[in-house]
C-alpha cells in the first residue's frame, strides 16, 4: 500500500507538471501575441451597431478586468491562474455574454462520450485482434487484417473522416453526416434520443476507431509475437495449461501492460483526432467549438477550450496511470 501511495504521488507530480507546462504554454502564446484581446473584443462587439464612445470606454474597462490585463506582469499572471483554477474564462465574444465555461460544459459531454467510446472500442478491438494475430501468426484472415491495419494506421484522421463522409453520406447515404442527434427530440435519457445520438455517432466514432484499431492492432501483434517466446508462456504450454487461459492470462494480459501505458501516451493524439473528426461531422463537441471559436476570433473561448483539453487529457492520463498497477503489480516496486 505504501509503495502504491509512493507511485501515485509520483504520477500525480507528473500530472501537475503537464498541466503546469501546458497551461503556461497557453498563457505565453496568448500573451506574446501583438493582438490586444480587449480591443479585438470591442471591435467585434461594435461591428454590429453604432456604439457611443462612452459605452466603448465602459466596455473596455470591464473587459480589461475580465481578461486580467490590469496591473503588473505578476498580478496578471496570478489573475490568469486563479481564473483557470475557477474554470472562469470570462464571457465568450461570439456568444456574448454567455460565459465560456458554460459553452465548454455543454460541449464536453459530447466529446467525452465520443472519445471515450471510440477509444475504448478501438483499444479493446485492436488489442484483441492484434493479440490473436500475434498468437496465430499463420492465420490468413488475421494476416489480411494486418495488411489493412498497416495501410490505415498511418493515414491522418481528417482523410479517413472525409472518406467515410463521402462514402456513407454521399455515395451510399446510410448514415447521418452532421449533428449529434436528430432535430426536435428531447435531450435526455429517452430511447428515441439515445438511438438518434448513437446513429449520429457512428461515422465520427468509426473514423476514430478505424485508425485506432490499426495502431493498437500493430502494437499488440508485435508485443504478442515476442511474448509467446517468453519463458513463462512456453512453460505454461509445456504444463498443458488450457490454451485459452494461456492466450488470455499469459499472453494477452502481459502484453496489455505496455498497451495501457501506450494508451496514456497517445491520449493527446487521439484527442487531436477527435477535434478534427468532430469538425468534419459537425458533432457538437469541444473540437467543433474550438475550430468555430478560431473562425469567430473568440479569444476567451479558444483559450478556454485549449486549457480544458490540456486538463482533460492529463486527467485521463493520470487516471490510466493510477489504474495501471491493477494490470501490472510490478510498478509499485520498480518505479
Amino acid at each position, binding site marked *: 500500500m505504501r509503495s502504491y501511495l509512493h507511485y501515485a504521488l509520483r504520477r500525480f507530480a507528473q500530472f501537475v507538471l503537464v498541466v503546469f507546462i501546458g497551461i503556461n504554454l497557453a498563457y505565453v502564446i496568448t500573451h506574446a501575441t501583438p493582438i490586444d484581446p480587449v*480591443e*479585438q473584443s470591442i*471591435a*467585434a*462587439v*461594435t*461591428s*454590429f*451597431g*453604432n*456604439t*457611443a464612445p*462612452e*459605452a466603448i470606454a*465602459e466596455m473596455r474597462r470591464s473587459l480589461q478586468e475580465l481578461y486580467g490585463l490590469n496591473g503588473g506582469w505578476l498580478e496578471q499572471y496570478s489573475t490568469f491562474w486563479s481564473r483557470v483554477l475557477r474554470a472562469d474564462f470570462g464571457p*465568450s465574444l*461570439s*456568444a*456574448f*455574454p*454567455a460565459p465560456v465555461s*458554460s*459553452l465548454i460544459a*455543454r*460541449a464536453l459531454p*459530447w466529446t467525452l462520450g465520443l472519445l471515450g467510446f471510440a477509444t475504448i*472500442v478501438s483499444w479493446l*478491438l485492436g488489442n*484483441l485482434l492484434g493479440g*490473436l494475430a500475434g498468437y*496465430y501468426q499463420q492465420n490468413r*484472415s488475421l494476416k489480411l487484417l494486418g495488411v489493412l491495419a498497416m495501410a490505415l494506421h498511418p493515414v491522418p484522421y481528417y482523410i479517413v473522416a472525409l472518406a467515410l463522409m463521402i462514402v456513407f453520406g*454521399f455515395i451510399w*447515404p*446510410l*448514415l447521418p*453526416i*452532421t*449533428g449529434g442527434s*436528430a*432535430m*426536435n*427530440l428531447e435531450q435526455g435519457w429517452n430511447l428515441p434520443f439515445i*438511438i*438518434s445520438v448513437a*446513429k449520429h455517432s*457512428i461515422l465520427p*466514432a468509426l473514423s476514430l*476507431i478505424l485508425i485506432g484499431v490499426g495502431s493498437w492492432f500493430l502494437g499488440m501483434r508485435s508485443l504478442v509475437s515476442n511474448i509467446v517466446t517468453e519463458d513463462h508462456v512456453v512453460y505454461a504450454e509445456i504444463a498443458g495449461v488450457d490454451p485459452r487461459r494461456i*492466450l488470455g492470462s499469459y499472453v494477452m494480459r502481459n502484453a496489455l501492460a505496455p498497451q495501457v501505458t501506450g494508451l496514456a501516451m497517445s491520449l493527446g493524439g487521439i484527442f487531436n483526432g477527435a477535434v478534427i473528426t468532430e469538425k468534419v461531422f*459537425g458533432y*457538437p463537441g469541444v473540437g*467543433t*467549438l474550438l475550430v*468555430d471559436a*478560431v*473562425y*469567430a*476570433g473568440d479569444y476567451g*473561448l479558444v483559450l478556454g477550450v485549449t486549457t480544458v483539453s490540456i486538463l482533460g487529457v492529463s486527467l485521463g492520463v493520470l487516471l490510466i496511470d493510477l489504474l495501471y498497477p491493477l494490470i501490472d503489480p510490478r510498478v509499485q516496486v520498480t518505479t
Partner: protein
Amino acid sequence: MISMRTWLAAAAMATALALPGALKVEAQGIPQNIPRKELLILENPEGTIKNAGWFNIWAINAGSQSNGLQQAALDTLWYIDPEKGIDGAWDNSLAAAKPEYNADFTEMRVKLRRGLFWSDGVEFTSADVKATVDIQVKNPNMRFSAVLANNVASVEAPDPETVIFKLKRPNSRFHANFTVRWGAIWILPKHVFEKVEDPAKFDFNKPVSLSAYTLHSFDPDGKWYIWQLREDWQRTSLGRFGKPGPKYLAYVDPGPPDKRVIAQLNNELDVIHDISPEGMFRLARDGKKSRGWFNGFPYGHPDPTLAGVIFNTQNEHLKNRDVRWALTLMIDVKAVVMAAYRGAATISAIAVPPTGIHPEAYHKPMEAWVRDFEIDTGKSKVKPYDPTVAKQITDMLRPSMGDQIPRDEKEIANSFGLGWWKQNPQAATELLERAGYRKQGAQWMTPDGKPFVLRLMVEGDLRPVMTRAGTMIVQQWRQAGIDARIDVAQGTLLTRRAAGDFDSFIGWSVETWGGHQDLSYFMDSWHSAFVAEAGKPQPLRNWQRWTHPELDKIIEDIRKIDFDDPKGVELGKDYVKLVTREMPLIPLMSYNVFTAMDHTYWTGFPTAENPYANPVTNWGNSRYMFVRLKPAN
C-alpha cells in the same frame, strides 16, 4: 484453432453491435414528430449557435441573429423590401402610416396600428415603443443604445397609438433606424423587460413574440430552432396578408455547403441561404424542384449590397488616389467574375449596388457620364470605361451554358450589369510612376525603395465566393508586379475590418435599401465625424476610413431633405461621381446570394418573376414569403 474462431466471431459481433442497425438507417435530417407537410425548413446561416438559449436580441452580439426570431417573432415600425414587396416596397408594419417629421426634422411622430397583441396575450401599445427607447438609453451596453442616445432627446407616448420622438439634432432619416432592411431596432415587450433588473444580461427565454409565430422548441446545442404558428396570428401585423402557409418553421444548421446541397437533394432543407456556385449548378441540374432567384443562370438573388475591394485609406500607400486607381486598372473584372461566381454576377462600375431600383435610378442615367469619365495619368489621358464588359461575359459563358445565357441587351443588363473599367496596364504604370513608385525588373518598388507588398483579406470558407474573387484579384496584382498576398481571416474579418487591421479586403461598405433610391442607409455613416484614428475601432460602415469634404457636404445636405425628395437622387449622383474620381473602394458586383428553394413541399417562393420579397433566410424582410407559401400537392 476452434477457440480462435470463437474469438474472431466475438470480435465480429462486437463490430456489428457497434453499428446498431447500420443497414436500415436513412439519413434523417428533418425534425422528428412534426408532419413534413406543415413544416418549412430553412437554413440558419450562422451555423451552430453557441449560446442557443439566448433570445434577447437587444443585448449586444448575443445569441443568434437568424435563428428565426428575426422573421417569426420580431416586428418593428416599418419595412422596406429590397425587391418590389407584396404591396409596394414600403410597408407600414407596426406603424399605421409613414413617419411624420416637423419642418426642421427635429421631431418624428408615429401613428401605430391597434389590435396587435404579444403572444402572451398582452396588447401592443405605444408604451412598448417608448420602452424600447428608454430601456436602451438607460442601459448603455445594449445593442441600439448608442444610436438612440445620440439621436433621441426624449420619447413620448401621449396615447396608446401615438409615439413622438424628440430628436437632439435635425435628422430626416431617423425613421431608418426603425425600418427593416435585414434588421432594424426591434420593438421589445415592455411588460417583460420592465421586470428585468439588468436587461443586458437577460436571456429572454422563452421569447414573447410580436409576430405570427412563437418558439416551439430549440436545440440546447444550437443546431435547430422550431417555431409554431400562433393561434391568434391574425392579431399580428402579418395577419393583414392572410394566413401564413407553414404551421411550423425550422431554422437549422445543415453544415457546410456540400452537406446543404445533399440535404436539399433529399428534400430535407427547403431554403438554403447560400451555397457555392458549383452547389447551385448541381441543385439546378439534379434537384427536380430546386431553383434559385432566377430560374436559370445566373440563379442568385442580388442583394442590395455592393461587393468590392475596400482599401484602408489610412494605409501609407493607399492614401494616394493614383495608387488606388492603378490597382483598379490592373484588374480584369471578367476573370474576377468568372472566378468568383463562374460568371453568375451582376457587375457595377460605380459604388451603388446594381440591384433593386438602383439601375434605373443611377446606373442607366449615369452611363453617359461614366463613358466620358477621363483620367489624367500625367503622361496621357484615358477613358477607362468599357461599356461592353457584361456582354463580353455572356459571350464567354455561352459556349458552356448555352441558351440559358440571354442575348437580349436589356436582359443582359438586368442580370449581368453594364460595363466596367477596362484592364489598362499602361495607365496603371503611369499612375504608379506619378505616385513615386518604380518598377525594378518585374517588381514594383515603393517610393522609399522597398517592394510594394499588399495584403488582401478574405473570409475563407465562410464566404467562398468572395474568397475566390480576392484570390483572383491578388493574382492579377501579382502578375502586374505587386507583391500581393491573400490573407484568410475567417470570422476575424469583422473584427479586423473594424479595427482597421488590414491593407485591403473583399467585402462591402455600401449597403442600400434596394427597394428605395435613398443612399443614406450607408452614406450617413461615411461622414468624417465618424472616422476613427488609425488603430482605433471604426464604427459601422465606413470601413475604408475615407474622408472628403465634398462627401461631408453631400451627407449634410441629404439630412436636410425628406426621405422621398427627388433631390436625394441628384445628391446620390454627386456621391457616385466623387467616389468614382477618388476610388476609395473598387466596386465589383452585387452580392449575389445563391438562395436555393425546393418546391417539393412548398410553392409560392419569391423569384425574379414574382419579386414580392427577398428569399434569403437571414433577412427580417423575408418574413413576407410565409404568407405566400402554399403546400405543394
